[in-house]
Structures are given as C-alpha cells and as structure tokens.
C-alpha cells in the first residue's frame, strides 16, 4: 500500500507540472492505485446477539499520460519526419482514417454482497491504452459486462411498479408472517432485507412480499437471509 501511495502522489505531481508549465517530462505513462478494504463482523448483546456485517471500501486512482513528446530522452521508434519532438503528439489510430489523442479504456468497479447464504467480494479493475484499448472498446460484450446497472434492474423496477397481483402463499410466507408477529423490531429488519434485494419498501410492500406470487423468489431468498 505504501508504494502505491507514492505512485499516486508522484503521478499527481507530474500531472500538475505538465499543466502548469513547459517542463520536460518522461515519456512514461504512470498509473497508480490504492485500495482500502475492511470487513467487520460483530454480535453485540445490545443487538440481541444478532451478527452485524459491515464492509468498508475506499479507492483512489491516478494516471499521468504524456501527450506531447518533449522528454529529455525522447526518441521516435521510426523517425521519418522533420518535425521537432516537442511538436509531435502521441496519437492513436485505427486501420482507417480515425485518429484520436490517445486510446484509453479503463474500468474501476466493485461488487460486494453479504448474507447468511454466503459473502462475496468482486473487484474489477483494468486500464488499457493503445491497441488493447481500441479492441476492448470495440467489443460489445465488454460494454455489456461493464454496465453500470445490474442486468436485472429493469425487471426489478417493473416488479416494484406492479399493482395487479396474484395471491399465492407458500412456506416462506408462513415463516415471514410468524417472524413479523414475533417481534415488533423484526419489521425493520425485514425491510432492510427488502432494500438489500432492491425491493421497494413502505405501506403495503411487506404484505405484497408475503402474499404475492410475483414475489415468491424474493421472499424465499429473504427468509433464508433472515435465518428462517
């Protein structure tokens, strides 16, 4: 962690210098990252011995990308121009005529889930330049994989908007009803589980979760998460 912090600091410093003046820089791309990740699991008597699961996640990223070739030791791989080095910019190009300043493709993401049926942490990060960036950017499957919203978010939104519902109680319905009746505090715990699953909360929502056929999968999952 200490070394990455130095890289971040150095990258920020170099970027500041390049913006503020015409100081020569190294023609080296710098990429720095620092990640702090912590998990706390506790069971306090004040909370009835119910385990609490807390996840902390903090991340910093920094990149310094030279755009102009003006380093002291800059060399062109293939010198067929009479231009001065300081007039030449790093560019990206495709086989056609498209050109850009620099081809970059990056993603920084995390997916953390927790529950009685298991906990998982997924950290996804990559940073690509040049041809690799062009190929990644042109791949539609990569774009889908990096979708900001989870794939089932649209279906979840539709489910939350349903008003015409079908009664179909099952074993999970009975368990959740008994859970609610056993302690007034359980309503908040149930609503917390609903929010974690992306379900709307508020008046009538718990009744729908317990009774509606459309919510059968969710109430089974939530009943399991509550240890029922």
């Amino acid at each position, binding site marked *: 962690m200490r070394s990455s912090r130095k890289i971040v600091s150095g990258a920020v410093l170099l970027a500041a210098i390049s913006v503020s003046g015409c100081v020569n820089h190294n023609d080296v791309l710098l990429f720095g990252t620092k990640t702090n990740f912590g998990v706390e699991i506790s069971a306090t008597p004040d909370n009835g011995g119910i385990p609490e699961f807390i996840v902390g996640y903090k991340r910093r990223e920094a990149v310094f990308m030279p755009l102009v070739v003006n380093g002291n030791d800059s060399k062109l791989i293939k010198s067929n121009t009479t231009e001065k080095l300081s007039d030449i910019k790093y560019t990206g190009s495709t086989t056609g005529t498209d050109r850009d300043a620099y081809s970059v493709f990056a993603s920084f993401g995390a997916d953390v889930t927790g529950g009685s049926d298991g906990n998982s942490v997924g950290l996804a990060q990559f940073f690509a330049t040049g041809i690799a960036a062009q190929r990644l950017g042109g791949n539609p499957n990569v774009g889908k994989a990096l979708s900001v919203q989870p794939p089932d978010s649209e279906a979840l939104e539709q489910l939350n908007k349903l008003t015409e519902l079908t*009664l179909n109680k099952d074993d999970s319905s009975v368990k959740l009803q008994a859970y609610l009746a056993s302690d007034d505090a359980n309503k908040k715990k149930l609503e917390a589980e609903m929010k974690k699953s992306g379900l709307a909360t508020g008046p*009538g929502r718990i*009744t729908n979760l317990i009774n509606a056929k459309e919510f059968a999968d969710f109430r089974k999952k939530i009943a399991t998460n509550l240890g029922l």
Partner: protein
Amino acid sequence: MAPIFNYDNLSSEEADDLVEQFNNDGCTATKEASGDKWKVVADCPDEEASGGDVE
C-alpha cells in the same frame, strides 16, 4: 402517486386475511365482491407521505 394494489379471484377467507394484513401494513384495504369470488383493493400511501421514522 400512492399505489393501489389489487388482488382478485380470492375466497372470502383469503380476502379477509389480506385486508387485515394490508391494514396492519399502513394501508386502507377493502374487500369487494367480484362475481362469485372476492377481490381486495388496498390504497397504500407513499412512503414519504406516511410519516415514517427519521433516522
């Protein structure tokens, strides 16, 4: 807009149970005849308008 939930094709006992649950869940629910069955209409206020707990 406050949602109005509808359940149709219910037995009388199912409708009574559902009305009780909705009323305990902060809604105003009614049991109505629907052919030879029953339906339940529950008028549930928005969460913001229901004066829920502030944390």
